[in-house]
């Protein structure tokens, strides 16, 4: 494989990592904080992409569409959390899974009803190519990587420097004790959930120009996001970052070598990791998941 191809595959891989990082945050935190499996996160991803598409066709501005996508996803997340998910906290995991999966299906149904079944193209906001190490790359992909990096830094600041973030991290460790300290954990959960669904919407909006958007786009992303979370270790933001970086490269470089690998390789990696290290790369040992003890 020649050097230019490999280099562009690596940059493409980083842009895929960026999207994966944005969409898996909700699933990782959702399990860590609320002990539910968030199957419906990807509906915000899909809505983010579709809202962006509609805003572009109406107003013609991609960046406005991006903002609208994030806001609408956040609002949707708020509604779903307040109306439905608060009823499933504390239930067994299977129950939360089937409920959230149903929400996901309902969302797909709504999208089919509103936008129809046909895939829609979203045009990229810039067609400029910029040279990186002598290979010309689309500027948009570099922008995606930059935005995801910025979001990650902001998240780290939020988690480490603010009271809400500290309460959230403590909630992941032990939600009951946090409540015992007089902090309303349910407000924090709602806040986190809105942030997470907004980020999933951002991921969808950013990904929209890179793929064709369709009602079922969430399904594949759901699987990839879960692979990311399983690989990184639940509840660990750092683990999610590392596994997103690995998977992006696996998808992109693997796909360059043999095209079916771009779809199959993440699953192979996941099966491999589940067999070798059930806690994922950065999972806490006490919270081993995957295997029964």
């Amino acid at each position, binding site marked *: 494989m020649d050097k230019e191809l490999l280099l562009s595959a690596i940059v493409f891989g980083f842009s895929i990592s960026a999207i994966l990082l944005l969409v898996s945050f909700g699933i990782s935190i959702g399990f860590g904080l609320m002990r539910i*499996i968030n199957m419906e996160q990807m509906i915000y991803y899909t809505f983010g992409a579709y809202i962006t598409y509609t805003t572009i066709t109406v107003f013609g501005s991609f960046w406005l569409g991006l903002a609208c996508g994030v806001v609408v996803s956040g609002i949707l997340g708020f509604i779903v959390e307040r109306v*439905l998910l608060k*009823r499933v906290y504390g239930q067994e*995991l*299977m*129950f939360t*899974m*089937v*409920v959230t*999966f*149903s*929400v*996901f*299906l*309902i*969302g*797909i*149904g*709504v999208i*089919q*009803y509103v936008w129809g*079944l046909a895939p829609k193209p979203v045009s990229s906001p810039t067609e400029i190519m910029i040279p990186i190490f002598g290979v010309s790359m689309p500027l948009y992909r570099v922008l995606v990587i930059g935005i995801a990096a910025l979001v990650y830094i902001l998240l780290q600041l939020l988690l480490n420097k603010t009271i809400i973030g500290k309460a959230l991290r403590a909630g992941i460790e032990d939600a009951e004790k946090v409540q015992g300290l007089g902090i309303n954990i349910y407000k924090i959960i709602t806040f986190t959930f809105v942030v997470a669904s907004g980020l999933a919407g951002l991921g969808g909006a950013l990904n929209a120009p890179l793929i064709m958007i369709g009602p*079922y786009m969430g*399904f*594949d992303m*759901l*699987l990839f996001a*879960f*692979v990311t979370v*399983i690989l990184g270790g639940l509840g660990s933001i750092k683990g999610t970052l590392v596994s997103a970086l690995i998977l992006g490269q696996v998808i992109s470089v693997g796909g360059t070598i043999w095209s*079916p690998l771009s*779809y*199959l390789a993440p*699953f192979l990696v*996941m*099966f491999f990791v*589940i*067999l070798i290290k059930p806690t994922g790369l950065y999972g806490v040992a006490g919270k081993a*998941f*995957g*295997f*029964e003890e």
Partner: protein
Amino acid sequence: MKGFGGPLLAVLILIIARIAFPAKMNFITEVSIFSIYVIGCNLLYGHLGMVSFGQPFYLSVGAYSTAIYLAYFGTSPMMSLLIGIGAGVVVGLILGPFFVRLRGDYFALVNLAICAIGLFIVEKLLLPITRGDDGLWYRSRMADTLFLDIRKPDNFFLFVMLALLVVLILFKYMDQSVLGASFRAVKGNERKMKFLGYSTFTLKLTGFTFASILSSFSGSLFAINFGFVNPNLGTPGRAADVLVATLIGGAGTVYGPIFGSFAFLGIRDIVSKYILRWELFVGILTILVLFKFQKGIWGNIEVLLYEKFGKKAKPS
């Protein structure tokens, strides 16, 4: 033989329904085949407490092995059914040891992943063999069978009834045996079960393989019924169908799956006249059933029967 009457009665009711409504024969055939599929899911969810979002994969394993045999190798439908069941056994025994060791949520997700991989393989990787989205057609290649020419819809209906009867009797036998009790005990408290000295791994593997066999068997029946297969059968999007049918009928009951598939397919047929895709409807139905109707149809009937005839309630 004890416990023979119930399944026989259930199948007789279906046959009477077919005689009473001759125009609905295809629907009843479909319901019966779907019931076998739902029984597989019921075994996993209702008895063992394992949720799988990948049941369509096992369905399409059976359907595609039957279809590929009929389209390329042989002509005998009976042989193709055996091959479908065999494929279910093989897949269950190969994947089972890896999957059943996983905790419940990962079991469900890994099944969803295998379902996506299966769809990808059928749609893209094996394109020359499965002809991708066009589907594989082989109705004209099916040969006559020994006693009953199952190419005719009427005879196939009888054949499906026979299959359902056998499955129901075996399922009821399993439900009342020690195996069924052990399954329910695993659902109730797996740790205690281990403490008592049972190998929950073996139990789960057995249940998983049974479910896989039932799913692939019903996939084979679907394949013979329709005379063609396409990847639509195994899309992850339809993973909830069978779960909903299980829940509506009543998880963990013997006759629940028949009621569940009857209700689910019936409502779906009515709804699909008005909306093209039924994801929206399936989702809303699942949430309603989960929150308001947890016992399911047969679960509620069972409670009534016990009250009326004062039978001892089944331990659950």
